[in-house]
């Protein structure tokens, strides 16, 4: 199996902040908005270096989304920053009408996605945001896997015309993809070639999938691992090519299985080449307070759960 090294755990939101710093220095059209969460979004450096290109809107996310839409009229590229819940559910119709339907070039950047924000609990732990965003026509949905990839994705989406939802998180997770990688929107990354099963993962569950694949290898099971950082548009070709070879799939995401990556993959498969699939996702539930590791364990999102799902799907081949 191909070897990946964790160069030290880092939070993906800091990758976003680092990407914003780069954009501040390289793209004069990039502007940032934040709703009283500068520290959490790690954008202080961007603000210090470009104070006139930053808008503190206060605790008023709906206003922020509308303002972002307006800023595009005149050629600005607005990046909005708040928690994932307040970036999506809170402001769905503002995004729908003023951004998505109006075709505005707004980058909705969402931190603290999923269960692993931890102790704040369910009011903050959105597990429905991928679904909400992927249902909007024209919306691109990206969930990078680590610090380096989040930084690269942040930089890349400034060049991508159209509305984008960029999802990242609070906990420190393994940082294992190359520094200064080029990020290609919509292009899956084949991390490990395998023959028995395809694991398609997004976000920090990509690392969990690699850990699972390693453990499976020791048991004589060869797992192909795909990092599907872009959930929409989905790299159907990569998925179909892999499943043609392995004949079964496990999808893994920190999200409800309703509306998540798994359903998008299932749709591609049933339309082209039906194959058994197991879902690593939360099971139609709200979250709760706890440490990230406890929550990953309790809600079945870690490498052990992926391993089990693989063993299950293999029996269904």
């Amino acid at each position, binding site marked *: 199996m191909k070897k990946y090294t964790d160069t030290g755990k880092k939070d993906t939101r800091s990758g976003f902040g680092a990407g914003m710093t780069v954009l501040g220095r390289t793209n004069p059209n990039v502007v940032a908005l*934040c709703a*009283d*969460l*500068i*520290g*959490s979004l790690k954008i202080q450096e961007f603000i210090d270096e470009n104070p006139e290109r930053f808008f*503190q*809107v*206060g*605790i*008023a996310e*709906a*206003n922020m989304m509308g303002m972002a839409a307006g800023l595009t009229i005149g050629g600005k590229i607005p990046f909005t920053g708040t928690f994932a*819940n*307040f970036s999506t559910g*809170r402001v769905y119709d503002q995004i729908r009408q003023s951004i998505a339907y109006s075709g505005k070039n707004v980058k909705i950047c969402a931190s603290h996605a999923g269960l692993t924000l*931890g*102790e*704040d*609990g*369910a*009011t*903050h732990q959105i597990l429905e945001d991928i679904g909400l965003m992927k249902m909007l026509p024209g919306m691109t949905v990206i969930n990078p896997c680590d610090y380096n990839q989040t930084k690269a994705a942040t930089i890349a989406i400034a060049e991508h015309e159209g509305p984008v939802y960029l999802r990242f998180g609070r906990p420190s997770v393994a940082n294992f993809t190359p520094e200064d990688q080029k990020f290609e929107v919509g292009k899956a990354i084949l991390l490990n070639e395998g023959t028995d099963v395809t694991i398609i993962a997004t976000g920090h569950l990509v690392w969990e999938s690699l850990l699972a694949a390693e453990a499976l290898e020791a048991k004589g099971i060869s797992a192909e691992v795909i990092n599907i950082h872009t959930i929409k548009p989905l790299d159907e070709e990569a998925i179909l090519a892999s499943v043609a070879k392995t004949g079964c799939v496990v999808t893994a995401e920190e999200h409800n299985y309703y509306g998540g990556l798994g359903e998008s993959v299932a749709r591609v498969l049933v339309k082209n080449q039906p194959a058994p699939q197991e879902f690593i996702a939360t099971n139609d539930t*709200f979250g*709760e*307070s*706890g*440490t990230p590791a*406890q*929550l990953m364990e*309790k809600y079945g999102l870690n490498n052990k759960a992926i391993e089990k799902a693989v063993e299950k799907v293999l029996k269904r081949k």
Partner: protein
Amino acid sequence: MSNIQQLNDLSTQVRRDILRMVHKVNSGHPGGSLGCTEFFVSLYNEIMELKDEFDMDGIGEDLFFLSNGHISPVFYSVLARKGYFPVEELSTFRMIDSRLQGHPTTHEGLPGIRVASGSLGQGMSVAIGAALAKKLNKDNHLVYSLHGDGELQEGQNWEAIMYAAAYKVDNYIATVDYNGQQIDGATDDVLPMGDLKTKFEAFGWDVMEIKEGNNIEAVINGMKEARTRTGKGKPVCVLLHTVMGHGVDFMMYTHAWHGKAPNDEQLEKALAQNPETLGDY
């Protein structure tokens, strides 16, 4: 009814609870909790008319809604010490499988909580709905709510403020924790809100101020006064001037402790300033 010394002792104990709760899990929101301690202690022990047992509908008693759900530590401590649930349960705050979630929820069935909060700006609408239900039920009790001042930046509040005045929701007292602080700094630096009193008045509310929101007598007297203003065709707003982090000298007058827990050494210092009165959980 209790005397002032007893209520001050309770406040000190609640402060210890808040500090120990957030310290244990190294997360949570001590600043606003400490600042609103006298308010919660007064409300639950001197102001609201409450039944002995909690039930969701709360018919025949006053109701309270916490809109700024992040100050759950003070809410949980005061509820526990009022007897809504065992005081020992405070030790489970923010831990997995606990009823004491980071932000208050009904999901785990914790007595005393009637709606989830945490995502800011939603509590006033809920409180208005509950006040309207009381009117429909011919229940003469009042509805109370608490909101952060930064929280008022959310537009939904102003929809609610407009409604409550237009439709004379006069069995309702909304209190604002007027501490002048939010996450990124002073409210005046983040998004200045101007003169809140004039704004509420312009929307048609009866507004009063409690200048010493961390003085238990001032809070009790102020809230009693607010009660007398209900039933007169206008919703009542109380601007409660508090100090974020009140009772712990190094946490006061700054936003720095909005959502940060003390370390071991800081906890010790903070507890020394609030000696045990009713017994730690």
